């Protein structure tokens, strides 16, 4: 759906635009980095049986962390309404170009990519740019309170939903439980989509849930779309865009070890290179970050946030008024800790099958409450509490008070995915 020529004009909230799922590729990294990661992972597994001390995060450097104000400036919360507009715009353009003819579009993205939150904004027309979204009114379909249905009841539930108007499901994994009576709603939805009786809609789906249903409904051909992977340049552009909102000048971020530049990005065109008065040394941090996060913006953002440091003599607050004066004396707005020195969450030593059942169930359902988690994973309540508290201490899962759901953390996701894969669990394609 996107190509190189129009990528430069793509929305910074959706860099690379949307592309067919089969065209999604993992960001490349150096062989040195891949080997280092593989050895690190193997050593972590070996060490798991020997020491139990290194569970929580510990900083490996002496630089102070960013203050709240600095964080909100350098790493603000993602703008989901802009992302929603970008998605709507992409879909509209694809329809106009004829590359998208399906009435129901499936958007598959890895957890933490922000697609769910963006799709939730589709129900607020004022949030979408009316010229791009052509004034369509989208209705968000929310999951029922209970997900256990027989096929008759599931069919009746869908009959009650008004599918004649454009509809959107922000996250499909909220509509099922991995139990015998928990499959009916999605089966019935896909049956209606295949029949062409589901009207016009958008289905957002986590890559883990999509993988499962792709195997379950082996003959279903949904031709899903996916946000393009966040490669180093896209990541750099995205971070810069986010931090330089409200007319601020571009952020300067440099490595703590050798002072090489992370942001702004290296000039790519010859003219820009000539204009650049100084020869700068650029870091490979963003390339490594893109590979570590597997092109996942949410994960990259979490690691980026953790890797940022302030200078010891920096003021805690950054005032807009005298920002320009300060910048004249500064060599960098923030400093970046190298990935190798950054201690990311590690998997605690435990019975791998039980831990695997819990983590896999959480990813498959995009978070679950404790009762559902017990039913889905088959782990007893007592054991589940122990495992969850252990994983929480290790910063791999988090309890969301607002909906009482347990979820895998963005910062712990790379470790969790890698361990589930090495234990033999089915993993997503991202």
């Amino acid at each position, binding site marked *: 759906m996107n190509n190189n020529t129009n990528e430069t004009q793509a929305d910074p909230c959706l860099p690379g635009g949307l592309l067919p799922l089969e065209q999604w590729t993992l960001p490349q990294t150096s062989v040195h980095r891949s080997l280092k990661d593989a050895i690190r992972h*193997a050593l972590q*597994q*070996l060490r*798991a*049986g020997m020491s139990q001390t290194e569970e929580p995060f510990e900083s490996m450097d002496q630089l102070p962390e960013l203050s709240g104000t600095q964080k909100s400036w350098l790493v603000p919360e993602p703008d989901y309404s802009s992302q929603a507009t970008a998605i709507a715009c992409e879909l509209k353009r694809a329809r106009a170009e004829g590359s998208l003819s399906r009435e129901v579009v499936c958007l598959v993205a890895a957890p933490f990519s922000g697609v769910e939150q963006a799709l939730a904004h589709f129900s607020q027309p004022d949030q979408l740019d009316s010229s791009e979204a052509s004034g369509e009114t989208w209705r968000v379909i929310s999951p029922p309170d209970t997900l256990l249905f027989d096929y008759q009841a599931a069919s009746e539930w869908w009959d009650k939903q008004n599918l004649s108007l454009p509809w959107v499901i922000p996250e499909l994994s909220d509509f099922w439980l*991995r*139990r*015998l009576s*928990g*499959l009916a709603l999605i089966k019935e939805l896909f049956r209606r989509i295949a029949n062409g009786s589901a009207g016009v809609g958008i289905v957002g789906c986590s890559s883990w849930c999509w*993988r*499962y249903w792709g*195997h*379950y409904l082996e003959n279903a051909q949904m031709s899903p779309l996916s946000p393009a992977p966040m490669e180093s340049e896209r990541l750099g552009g995205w971070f810069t865009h986010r931090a330089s909102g409200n007319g601020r000048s571009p952020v300067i971020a440099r490595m703590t070890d050798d002072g090489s530049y992370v942001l702004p990005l290296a000039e790519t065109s010859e003219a820009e290179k000539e204009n650049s008065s100084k020869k700068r040394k650029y870091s490979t941090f963003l390339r490594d970050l893109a590979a570590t996060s597997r092109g996942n913006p949410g994960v990259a953002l979490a690691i980026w946030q953790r890797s940022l440091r302030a200078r010891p003599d920096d003021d805690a607050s950054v005032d807009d008024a005298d920002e320009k004066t300060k910048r004249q004396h500064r060599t960098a707005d923030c400093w970046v800790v190298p990935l190798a020195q950054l201690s990311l969450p590690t998997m605690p030593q435990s019975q*791998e*099958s039980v831990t*695997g*059942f819990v983590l*896999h*169930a959480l990813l498959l359902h995009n978070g679950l409450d404790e009762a559902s988690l017990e039913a*889905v*994973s*088959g782990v007893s309540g007592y054991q589940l509490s122990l495992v969850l508290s252990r994983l929480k201490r290790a910063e791999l899962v988090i309890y969301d008070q607002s909906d009482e759901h347990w979820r895998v953390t963005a910062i712990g996701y790379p470790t969790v995915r890698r361990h589930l*894969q*090495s*234990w*033999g*669990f*089915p993993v997503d394609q991202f």
Partner: protein
Amino acid sequence: MMDDLGVKEAFASITGQALLKAVLVVLIASLIVLAIQKMLPRVAEKLGGKPRLYLLASVPLLRLLIILATIVVVVPILVEPSFENMVAIFGALALALGFAFKDYANSLIAGIVTLYEMPYRPGDWIQVDGQYGEVRSIGARAAEIVTPDDTVVIVPHSKLWNSLIANDNDGTDNLMCIADFHLEANHDVGQVRELLRDVAFTSPRTKTWQPVQVIVFNKPWGMHYRLKAYPFAPKEQFQFISELTARGSAELAHQGVRFVSAPVTGN
């Protein structure tokens, strides 16, 4: 006879110092082999998944390489490695093995063939002469398998020549499990097949990217269903079959499908 082969001449030049050196080399090689046999399986257990299988499979190969290297080092220490001497030594060795240790040599040779053909590797689940278990280690003469009842069975490699060896996962971590259901006739076969497929897909142990199949046979006593699926790890197979059987039985009973109550003989 030994004189005819020239063995006496070949060994005539062996000095005490050379013998001591050779013993030292053999001792060091033995210690390395012992360390590999003890350490690598332990490390493999920690890693799990495919790295575990690869590491386990490398143990016998490393041992063979060390043995070959030891022979290459020790022989020139003891005797001058001329063509005549080599013919003499290996001729005598072949004669001794041929007469005195025929079966032992048979197993040793089969052991080398095992490393080349790899009918089983450490970590594989195999069945030989009615004994089923996981290959724990592969020695020079025999392989050790551990049955599900935690009994160690020694399987001589010579079984390779004249026994059928069934390998369930063949060096991979994909092992198909089958849960059997014997049901009375007069039910909706399509519905039961779909239900049993769902039973497999809703198990947290199922490797969903591998095929899940439900096969049904019409028998004189009713219907025989076989639910075939893959667990996420071969060692989970018994828990997996138990879970499929328990959940499948409960749901079939809930749907009013009855199991055959009379004992059935044969297929």
